[in-house]
């Protein structure tokens, strides 16, 4: 276990370093951040002054070295645009995103697993066909379109949900959480539904495929023969064995939604961190992009680690080495 952890830690450091190098290289193609900061009729001396204040007067290599050395000291750099620590900018937006993604994932799992099991167990049924057709829609409809339709129907037309924003929040351990207030729930439903549809459809199809495969195995017939109920056969014997790929996809989707919920956040003006990434790319705000992508890499590494742990719980034959 210790060896496994150490290996993972070394891998992670390597991944983070590579991400930082790639972003630094990429940023040389996305335009000069100085021109995003100075007025367009700035004189050369004004531009030089801005360049100096932003630390952009050094060669890229020196800039990268500076970035690395301050990183080691726990300083992630300052945004060119906001003139605030990049990490603070991201972290103050992180809870809103995580909250929305968690609600979306819970919705996705709550719908996808039972429906997937059902569709896998009765592949020829009419209901199963309807479910599968629906899941195809869920995969193929673009999120921004679904979001706009939901806003139009539920906010503008019927007036049951607000169109955008986060609503009231309550504080818990210093974090602002909307799930603790009625108004917060009211605001989170539409964006969470929008975000969950794609994942819901993917998980549903994975579950169904897994169940169909497992259904042909002898141990399923044996379980049925020894007199287990249909429910127990499906959920205890079947689902547990079909779950490994589902958990893998779940982990990847979770990371993906946290990192890149940008479109949903923009449409519902949800104050999350995805929007920050897009804005920063437009403004060539390198420090924010670097830290953001490194954080995302970290989130993926952690999620993958947790997924590995879950494997061992589901299937005792798997162990971490």
């Amino acid at each position: 276990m210790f060896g496994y952890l150490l290996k993972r830690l070394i891998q992670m450091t390597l991944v983070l370093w590579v991400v930082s190098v790639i972003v630094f290289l990429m940023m040389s193609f996305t335009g000069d951040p100085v021109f995003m900061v100075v007025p367009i009729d700035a004189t050369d001396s004004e531009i030089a002054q801005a360049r100096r204040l932003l630390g952009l007067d050094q060669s890229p290599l020196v800039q990268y070295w500076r970035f690395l050395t301050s990183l080691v000291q726990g300083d992630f750099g300052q945004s060119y645009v906001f003139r605030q620590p990049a990490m603070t900018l991201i972290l103050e937006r992180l809870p809103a995103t995580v909250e929305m993604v968690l609600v979306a994932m819970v919705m996705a799992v709550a719908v996808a697993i039972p429906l997937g099991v059902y569709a896998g167990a009765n592949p020829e049924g009419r209901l199963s066909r309807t479910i599968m057709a629906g899941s195809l829609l869920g995969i193929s409809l673009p999120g921004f379109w679904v979001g706009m339709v939901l806003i139009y129907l539920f906010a503008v037309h019927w007036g049951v949900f607000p169109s955008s924003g986060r609503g009231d929040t309550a504080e818990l351990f210093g974090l602002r959480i909307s799930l603790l207030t009625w108004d917060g729930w009211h605001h989170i439903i539409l964006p969470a539904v929008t975000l969950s549809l794609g994942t819901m459809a993917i998980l549903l199809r994975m579950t169904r495929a897994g169940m169909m495969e497992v259904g042909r195995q002898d141990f399923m017939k044996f379980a049925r023969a020894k007199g287990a109920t249909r429910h127990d056969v499906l959920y205890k014997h079947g689902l547990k064995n079909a779950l490994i790929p589902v958990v893998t996809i779940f982990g990847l989707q979770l990371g993906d939604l946290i990192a890149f919920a940008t479109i949903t956040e923009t449409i519902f003006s949800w104050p999350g961190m995805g929007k920050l990434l897009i804005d920063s790319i437009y403004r060539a705000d390198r420090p924010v992009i670097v830290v953001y992508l490194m954080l995302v890499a970290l989130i993926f590494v952690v999620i993958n680690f947790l997924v590995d742990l879950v494997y061992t719980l589901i299937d005792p034959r798997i162990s971490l080495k």
Partner: protein
Amino acid sequence: MKYLSHTALRAGAVGVAIAAAGAAFAQDKSVMIGLTSDPSHLYPLAGEELSSNIMYYHLYDPLVKRGADLSFGPGLAESWENVDEITWRFKLRQGVTFHNGNAFTAADVVYTVNKARESIRPDLVANVASVTAVDDYTVEIKTPKPYAVLPNDLAELLILDEEYTTATGDEKMDLMPMGTGPYKLGEWIKEEKLTLTANDGYWAGEPKIKNVTFRPITNPATRTAALLTGEVDVIQDLAVRDVDRVKKEDGYSVVTRPSLLNVVLAMDMREQSPTIEGKNPMTDQRVREAIARAVDVNAINKIVMNGLATPSDQFVPSSHIGYVDGMSFREMYPLDIEKAKALMADAGYPDGFTMTLDATNNRYVNDAQIAQALASMLAKIGVTLELNIMPKSNFWGHIRVPTENSSFIMSGWDVPAGDAGSMYGALFYTRDKKDGYGQVNRGSYSNAEMDALVDKADSTPDVEQRDAYLQEATKILMADIPMIPVHYEQDIYAVRDGVTLVPRVDKFLWAYDMDVD
């Protein structure tokens, strides 16, 4: 147990009664405004961008106040006068305090000017050579040379509290602003909302609206939805496609006003141009005129802009110093393909030529579509435009003087200072001749007469004389055509009924001037 619950009930009832009474007394006017983006800054010296500018003018005051219609009047300075050609004396308003109670004095003005010079915005004080406090309520500002429109420039310099700003530091100033403005910061939750509360002791009178909430709603369709569901009272930048829909809806109206932003096409006038093979045809005035005559601004307005643009008649709007009454680029060079073709033939280019147009796709309203329309328009006179369309983060560096990549550039220019001088100096003054002039002259236009007029305008302390010189300069530009003015974008707002909003020419929404019922 019974007793307890009874008391609790009574306590609850009293609570409700108090809350109700509070609501009845409070009746405070409030307004919710949907903006296109969250401000990046609340510290005026940290950077410049529309949402931040809107906040700055709620929180801070300049010495000279710019009105909604671009008129200039007293702000923190009550009056000013020229002592001599380069010295201005400003009498400051007495009894003004910052939100923390500190008194506003001449020392704060001196501090702000010096602070700006060291900041990322030294351009704010480019025309200030020195500033001294004569006494607590008088400051003397010297300009490097006679400069008639110094007060207009000072309308953008927002005064900081020396003691507070020094103690707080630049980074924290962005989060904890402290000015003399009509509103104080309530709370700012990034990307979610920013609330302002009225500064009841405001020197120009108590604000009518007590609570202002700004919500950043980036997606245009969501912004419209937020207005129609009653979540906000006012939205900035109503999407062009939603204009008809909101107009039809009962209880809402659309407010438009031509902006100051003039979309212009700059033509390269060097002998050799980066994207043109051989000699650059645009050195010939006839070719430039032909291009001007081939651009159908009315078609662009109707088809690309849905009628929501105002074709521009000069390089600056009629409110500005330097505008020539009655002169119109559109009348001088109306759409005329035959004439344009003849001009091209006269100049020796009957078959036209090929060049690249550099344009943005996320800076101006429908900018990429305008570029495409231009390509098909110029094709009619044989000019083949290759389009190089890019996001603004790449654009400004790409077209930057010395303009090593561009022959034909679409960009925009606005002068909220209400004076053509700074624009002419930056865009049309011969390059590399004088420090601070011609730094954005991307087409390398050079005309000694033009330079002389800008020099004269920038060295007279008299505004009327400045106006006369700049008008002469305008006439030269209209004849030389170093640039083609296309149109002014329109600012489009939507409000619910009961909200009074007079849009400002400079786009800086200001709750102090608004009212709700």
